[in-house]
Structures are given as C-alpha cells and as structure tokens.
C-alpha cells in the first residue's frame, strides 16, 4: 500500500532518531565509564570500564556527608515541586477562565518579568532575604522559585486544550470553580502535570545560582552545590567527580522514568 518514497522517508526518520538518541546518551555513558576509572585514566581519555567503581564510591561517601546533602536536595526539590505545581497550575487555569482585557496585559507583564536575567535580581533579592532572616533556611532556598512564571505559561498554554464543554457542563450541574479544578481539571490534565513535574523537579534539583547565595553552612548544602566545590579543586579527582555526577544525576533520571509511565498513560488516556 505504502509508496516507496514514504518508506524511504520513514527509514530516514528512524535513522535520524537513532543517531540523535545515541548522541544524547553518549555523555552519560562517558560519565558512567569515568565513575569506574581513576583520575589518571580519565584524563588520559580511557573509554572503557575500569575497576575503581568501589574505590570511587567509597571515597565519595567518606568525603561527603551524603545523607545530609541528598536529604537537603530531596527536601527542597520535592516540597518545591509540590508547591510550584499547585501555585502555577492554579494560575494557569485561572487565566483561562478569566475573561477580561486585563488578562492579556498581566500576561504580557509576566513575559517581561521572565525576560529579566536572574543575575540582575540576585543582589536585591539577597538583601531582602537577608533582612527577613531567610538566609540559610530551606524556605529561603525554595521561595523565589515557587511562582515560576515559566510554569504559569506552560499550564496556561496547555489549559487551552482543556475541553471547555466539560467545564460548561459542570457549571450547569452547579459545580463550583474549585470543584471543577480539583475533580475535572487535574485528572483530565494529568499528562500535563506529569511533564510539568519532571521539569520542575529537575529545575529545583539542579538549581545553583540562588541556593549558592542562601546557603551558608555545610549542613544546608544541596548536592548540586557540593558537586561544584568538588569540581573546582586544584587537583581535581575526576574519578570522584564522575561518581558524584552519576549519583547526583540519578534522582532526576529516576523521576523521569517513574513519571514517564504516567506520561504514556496520559497519552493513551483520552483527551478528546
């Protein structure tokens, strides 16, 4: 049935995808190989698995207070993700049901807010947080990221595909807006939430510039900050850095794998 041109096209597409996938994954392979080698092997470009995984791992757990830094990262990222999703999806939905001209103006304003380089806001934000006694606290690390403008945009965009008939029918049945949000919007939009959760978790896990300003003691460090201090040593121990990289990347990869199933379910689950 298929014409030959379409067949070639589809083969080319497949080849391109597999090449892209290979390029995407290669650095991860490189990192894992590095975690099994010594610093010297790594700098001399050894590309095969070595025998130093146990040694590197042991060094990691003896030089770094792993439960503490991972605990901090998990706490900040999980709590931060829940709060961010709540605040931004509410706003995204709110903007969609909100029908006035102010909406577009607020929206344009948000876009401009998003375009200010964060570096420019660090100094005044730092002064605010310092005066408010939020330095070196978990709240201090999380707070500026919760109302993520980017995520408000994301939910707003995706809400456009939320079937309005559902909402109209629910309104006729006498449901309140918060009930519609809770019982209809969230379940229907779960693939949107799954993707959002991956992105927000990843962003808070890897957050760097701001946590750096807030954190003042070893006890409050996140794994991302710890990694940076390892990597900047005069005599960098690349075996240690690579295993640290692997361990620090693992949670975000796991979150992705866990939610990916949801993601697929969301795909199959009908949003018609």
């Amino acid at each position, binding site marked *: 049935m298929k014409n030959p041109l*379409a067949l070639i*096209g589809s083969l080319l*597409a*497949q080849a*391109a*995808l597999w090449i*892209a*996938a290979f390029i*995407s*994954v290669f*650095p*991860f392979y*490189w*990192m894992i190989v590095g975690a099994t080698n010594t610093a010297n092997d790594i700098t001399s*470009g050894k590309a095969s698995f070595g025998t130093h995984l146990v040694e590197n791992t042991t060094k990691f757990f003896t030089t770094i207070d792993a439960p503490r830094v991972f605990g901090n990262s998990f706490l900040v990222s999980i709590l931060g993700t829940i709060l961010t999703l709540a*605040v*931004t999806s*509410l*706003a995204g*939905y*709110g*903007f969609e*049901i909100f*029908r*006035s001209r102010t*909406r577009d103006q607020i929206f344009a304003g948000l876009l*401009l*807010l*998003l*375009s*200010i*380089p*964060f*570096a*420019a*806001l660090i*100094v*005044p934000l730092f002064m605010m947080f310092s005066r408010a006694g939020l330095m070196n606290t978990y709240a201090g690390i999380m*707070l500026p990221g919760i*109302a993520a403008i980017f995520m408000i945009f*994301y939910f707003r*965009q*995706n809400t456009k*595909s939320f079937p309005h008939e559902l909402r109209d029918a629910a309104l006729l049945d006498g449901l309140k807006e*918060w009930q519609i*949000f809770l019982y209809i919007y969230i379940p229907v939009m779960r693939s949107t939430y799954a*993707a959002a959760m991956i992105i927000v978790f990843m962003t808070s*896990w*890897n957050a*760097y510039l701001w946590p750096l300003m807030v954190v003042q003691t070893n006890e409050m460090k996140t794994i991302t900050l710890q*990694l940076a201090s390892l990597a900047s040593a005069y005599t960098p121990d*690349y075996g240690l*850095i*690579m295993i640290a*990289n692997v361990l*620090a990347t693992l949670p975000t990869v796991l979150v*992705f*794998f866990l939610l*990916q199933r949801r*993601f697929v379910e969301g795909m199959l689950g009908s949003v018609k």
Partner: protein
Amino acid sequence: MSNAESRRGNLAGWAFIAPAMVLLGLFMVYPIFWSLWMSFQTGKGLNFKFGGLANIIRLTKDPVFQHALSNTMIFLVVQVPVMIVMALLFAVALNNPALKGRAILRTAIFLPCVTSLVAYSVLFKSMFAVDGVVNHTLMALHVISAPIGWMVEPFWAKVLIILAITWRWTGYNMVFYLAALQNIDPSMYEAARIDGVPAWARFTRITIPMLRPVILFTTVLSTIGTLQLFDEVNTITASAGNGGMPADSTLTLSLYIYNLLFKFVPNYGYAATVSWLIVLIVAVLSWIQFQVAKER
C-alpha cells in the same frame, strides 16, 4: 455569556491566580524596581550617585558590551530555529505509533536536560578537548584531518556552545510538542489520510496549525533562554575561572552582567542597564513572534 456569569468567572479567575501574583509581587517587584532605579546610578558597590543616562551612553562606547551583544544575537539567530525545527521533527516522528522502540528513543532524546550543570560542563570539556573523544571520532571517520580546537579557536568555540545547548534542550522542547500532539484528535489524521493527503501536507496543514500555540510558547521561551545564555559560556568555554573564552568570542550579555556584578569590582548600575536592554530586546522580539503567529 451573560454579565453575571462573566463576573463570576473573573472573580474565580482572580482567586486562582492570586497565590502566584502574591508570590511574584513579593519576590520580583522590589528587585525589579531596585534594578530599574539602579540603572540610573553610577559608581562601584553601594557607593553610587545619580547619573541620569550615563550608563546608556556608556553602552554605546563599551566595546566589550557590543561584542557580547553581537555574540548573543549570533547564538539566538542560529541556535533557536535549529533547535525548534529539530524538536518538532523528532516529536512528530516519535508520535508515529508504528515506530519501533519509541519509548527508548523518547527517553534517550529527553535525557540530556536532566543532567546538572556541573556534570554537563565537566563532560563537555573532557569530550571536546583537543585530543578528546569527539576529535578522535571525527578523525577516525575522516570528517576532519586535524583536531579541531573546540575551546581554542573563536569560531569553533561558538559552534561548541551551540552544539551544547542544542544537545541539552532539544529533547526538552520535544516533550512539549509530544504532549501537545496527544491533544490532536487522531481521527483528523485518519480522515486526511483517507482523502489522500500526503504526509508532508498532513504535517503542514494539521500538525503545525494545531501546535501553533505551543510552538509560539517554546519559541518565545527559547528566545528568552538564549538571550540569557549564561551557564554554558561560564563553565564550558571557561579557563582559569573566566568564562566567555577564547578572546570573549563566547561572551554573552548575561555573562557580562555576571562579570560586572560578581567578578569585576561590582557596578550594579551598569549591570542593571545591560539587564534592561535584554528585557527591551525580548519585548520587541516577542511582539514580532506573536504577530507572526497571529497572522498565519
């Protein structure tokens, strides 16, 4: 819709966006007004005085700023379209239910964006070293005859940064398209196929128009992201703690702001002025992008 209904919708709408607005008000309004006010001050650290338009005049005379601006624009013009098109094509190809290994491919292509910045920069620096694995591979494949100085030659350093950002963010953008593709009714494609519409036309006439909001969304965001490009040029093309190497060929506006604030003797006023210039550029570009999207 009646007035009463519309008012009810508005009230609820306000209630839903209130938490976000309160937080943004708390954490953005003060810093923004501070930086706006600072952009009219001159001086180092907190010893400053009102300078009127002095900072804006300085922009016109500052070769480093002009260099950073042109670098940033080159990154923007080359990188954003390449990435958006690739992400879109990957998403559509992956959305084909007949494709084998979809889950693996999707996961693999998305994976780069989960790496932390530190891991990413250590890896790229080692892979793109003069005698690193990338040069070795390219030479073995006879693509090049001599190793490329990825972080040594100004031209290749720019290429490296574009490769790095594209590696990291293409899969990320692809996920947005994939998610949006789920919301297109498959029966539309079915009907088109039965009517004998070829694949390319199905792509341009159904997929693109249906994805227009999300394409606009990702384009605007990628534009903003590239205008704020900082992480890569501060870590990958960096030497002895100074980013933007070699010879400032990868110096971006955001990195310049960072240097003015944290590396050089701090000049908050001038750094704020450069920041507001970025805001201005974003405003203009976004307006253009919205107009283009609207007209189609």
